[in-house]
């Protein structure tokens, strides 16, 4: 079981490494969206400091959603998905591997670059850690929930737009608590409770979504 888990993660990372442009596109999208906000809202430092966590979180939401459509579509198109469904490893395990690989490729880079972008908004340095940690806890949840949508919209007309319609409302709690973690710390309160809530979200998502993703994949592959 672990062999299959490792094999799928390794395979997906290898494929991503051989097609680095795709990974960079999502990352560049993140950077550009975040940079657009000061242009639209003006460069008033206090305003920028206030909106920074929200802007970065919303951009991270959109960026991680962009790469979701690719999560299963290629495996679906070339028949690998069928082999995964008929493997001796429970589909839930394969799905966890797929989500983990997706997060490593498209979630983790966002987490790493976010503090740099936060500097553009003059976010206080003590808050950079909070922001990074909140994204570190939150982006895996985005990948897990997003994978349900990606599996459900597999092979459908206009799958990408439909996917955002399905997934974005479900992202709301992650966004609220994630951006709120930074807000509350900037208000001088302890963010510990929020980190705990984020951790709880991660546990809940990691427990339930593999089932939902696996069920959705079987439905979509019929």
């Amino acid at each position, binding site marked *: 079981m672990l062999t299959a888990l490792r094999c799928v993660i390794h395979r997906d990372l290898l494929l991503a490494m051989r097609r680095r442009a795709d990974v960079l596109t999502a990352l560049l999208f993140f950077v550009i969206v975040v940079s657009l906000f000061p242009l639209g809202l003006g460069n008033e430092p206090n305003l920028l400091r206030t909106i920074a966590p929200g802007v970065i979180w919303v951009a991270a939401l959109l960026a991680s959603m962009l790469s979701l459509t690719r999560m299963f579509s290629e495996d679906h198109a070339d028949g690998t998905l069928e082999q995964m469904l008929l493997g001796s490893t429970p589909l839930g395990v394969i799905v966890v591997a797929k989500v983990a690989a997706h997060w490593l490729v498209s979630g983790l880079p966002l987490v790493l670059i976010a503090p740099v972008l936060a500097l553009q908004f003059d976010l206080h340095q003590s808050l950079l850690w909070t922001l990074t940690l909140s994204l570190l806890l939150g982006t895996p949840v985005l990948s897990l*929930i997003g994978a*349900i949508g990606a599996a*459900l*919209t597999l092979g*459908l*007309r*206009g*799958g990408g737009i*439909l996917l955002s*319609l*399905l997934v*974005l*409302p*479900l992202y*709301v*709690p992650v966004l*609220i*608590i994630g951006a*709120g973690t930074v*807000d*509350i710390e900037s208000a001088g309160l302890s963010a510990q409770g929020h980190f705990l809530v984020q951790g709880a*979200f991660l546990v*809940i998502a990691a427990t*339930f979504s593999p089932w*939902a993703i696996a*069920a*959705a994949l079987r*439905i*979509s592959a*019929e």
Partner: protein
Amino acid sequence: MRAETAAAGHNLKRTQINWFKYSSPQTFFPLAAKLTPWFGAAAVLLCAIGLYIGFFVAPTDAQQGDAYRIIFIHVPAAWMSMFLYVVMAFWAGAGLVFNTRLSGMMASAIAPSGAIMTFIALWTGAVWGKPTWGTWWVWDARLTSELILLFLYFGFMALQAAIDDPRRADKAGAVLALTGVVNIPIIYFSVQWWNTLHQGASVSLKSAPTMAATMLLGMLVMALGFWMYCIATTLLRVRRIILERERRSDWVAQYVRTMK
């Protein structure tokens, strides 16, 4: 090596236990036709009584004057919108577990009613907001949750609309609805928490007038009326869905002939 061809037939279905008798679209179709007018009549009657209580019996509020009376539509619609999502998820989940076709059809038929109730709750909330707070939209916790609920309904309907094969549409919708049902409490509480962080509790629908007994009665009667209305429209819709999906079967052909 043994190989035979059995006659194609639906004789398998007959052997199901009585409990599932009405889970067959064919038997449910005439039942739904019989029930619809009763639920429709109950809806009209209850809504008339509810509106009468709301507009003529319930006292005028000291703070908000008569503007508050919109809660007799707003609150029952909001209740129904959430209740219907759970009912929809229940039917969808039942369809996934028991593999009954009718359950999925029920779920698809409920979704538009739920969306309409959510929309009414949002619209009346906005209309209430204008005279009360001077603005059409406040990011009140309940209004915001209703807005997200509306998105969830739209997502469910859009997903089903995008899938051509009805069986896949039912199952995919079921997974989405169940995911939504797990999420709704989380969304609700996080929105509530967000609201207290950003606005304080000063502007909230919770500051509605303290409930007089007649007000509660009015809202309950209205909620029952809306409920009956939703059942009636769902039954109408499910009949249409049954006809559409079973159009190849003999009984539908026969039914269509008798309609001519």
